[in-house]
């Protein structure tokens, strides 16, 4: 595990009281961004998965789908960006779990930064790195599909950021509440699969079996996918989806922070 030199120097030299809390939160966030980008293997893998899903799977399967009014390749292209950002946002949970296992968390707790700033910084870092990571893929889709309206693109990116923020909170919640490594792997993988597959990211709700279509509209990935498509394709704001995303962020960020705080403080809230 390695750290930003700026973080080390910023956190070690000046007294805590003199540091602006926003700056400390951003230092923590930047550390998480840096950690992801120092593990190029993860970036290569997920980028490759995106490329193959889009240019092999979506291209070939869309030739088999003949539904009037549905451009499946375009539908899948936007959805695969949403599914990918959800997937990469889950990685923060693995990082936090590993830190606890390897003892790096103990080191982090000695840094002159308050617990609250530490936790918010981690969540923000998880979301920030996901959005940075996804931008090249988003651009690929935008170029292929001809999405050029700046406001639409900004609105879609906002939806993606909200999703990333909420999923980060969810991932942190799982990472700090499950103790066994195997169980953690299974729970997180299952959660990732469930929120992505039972959503409108990869296929329209009209084609889902009834037992899925009942729940799919409430998946955070559906909120983000619907909102992004409304912005990019329909040039409108899907307000209910955005409200759903904000609610998801508030709930899981709150839960993630509470669980993380409790774990850091040996089960005691303060």
């Amino acid at each position, binding site marked *: 595990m390695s750290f930003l030199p700026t973080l080390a120097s910023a956190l070690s030299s000046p007294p805590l009281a003199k540091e602006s809390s926003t700056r400390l939160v951003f230092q923590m966030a930047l550390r998480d961004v840096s950690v992801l980008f120092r593990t190029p293997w993860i970036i290569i893998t997920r980028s490759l998965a995106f490329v193959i899903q889009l240019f092999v799977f979506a291209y*070939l399967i869309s030739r088999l789908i*003949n539904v009037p009014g549905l451009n499946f390749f375009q539908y899948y292209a936007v959805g695969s960006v949403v599914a990918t950002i959800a997937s990469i946002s889950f990685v923060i949970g693995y990082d936090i779990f590993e830190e606890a296992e390897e003892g790096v968390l103990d080191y982090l707790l000695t840094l002159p930064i308050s617990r609250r700033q530490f936790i918010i910084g981690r969540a923000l870092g998880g979301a920030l790195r996901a959005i940075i990571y996804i931008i090249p893929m988003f651009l690929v889709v935008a170029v292929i599909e001809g999405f050029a309206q700046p406001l639409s693109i900004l609105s879609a990116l906002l939806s993606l950021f909200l999703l990333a923020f909420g999923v980060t909170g969810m991932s942190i919640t799982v990472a700090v509440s499950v103790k066994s490594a195997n169980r953690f792997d299974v729970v997180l993988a299952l959660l990732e699969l469930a929120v992505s597959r039972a959503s409108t990211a990869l296929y329209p709700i009209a084609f889902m079996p009834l037992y899925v279509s009942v729940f799919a509209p409430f998946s955070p990935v559906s909120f983000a996918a619907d909102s992004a498509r409304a912005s990019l394709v329909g040039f409108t704001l899907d307000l209910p989806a955005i409200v759903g995303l904000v609610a998801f962020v508030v709930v899981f960020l709150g839960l993630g922070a509470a669980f993380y705080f409790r774990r850091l403080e040996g089960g005691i809230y303060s």
Partner: protein
Amino acid sequence: MFANFAIDLFVTAATFGRLVTGQGANYFLFIAPGSNLITAMVAAFQSGRDVWREKYIKDLTSYLLTLPVQRPVLAFSRVLGGVVRSVIATFPGTLVICYLYGILFTPKVFVAYLIVGLFSLGIVGLSMAVSAFSSSIEMWVTIRSVIQLYLSFLSTLFYSVNVFPQLLAPIVSSNPMTWAIQSFRQLSPISFAQVPAGDSLGSILILAGPSLAFAMLGTICYIWYSKL
């Protein structure tokens, strides 16, 4: 594992089954065995991950050296153990596919398990070989993901080989998943337009080739990297 399989089958495959029409047969049934084979693949890769953890995290090599068993036997038993684990992990899934294919109460159900076992044999061997050359978990996960992408998307799991551009056809035809899923589909009394007619024996024999080769590779790599 069963939950993963269930999501793959009853959510993704069921939805694509409704989206893809006009392919001559029920598309859901066409891709259904894929959900089970993907589960088998994930379970088989878990064996390689365990071997990697034993080496780099738990440092169990010296303990393994004390075991009263011949080293090649130990190495091959690790491969076989992975296969058994994978078959157990996919046990209910295989039953579900056999039920969907209407072969649950026929002797073909044993052939279905043979296919899952043979396919798993190759993947366990491959994952153990990957463990030998991966110095970090990130590298291991990356190689695993690349192999999984190849097995899933560059095979006939979702579409027939003639849908691919000609350039990719040899890659698809040499994919073990292609032969595993073809032999599964040939077990079914349903005739899929995209699947060559005939019994599954020929496809199973073709699948056996790479599976045995990968199992051998995994065994050799395990002996080599454990310094047994």
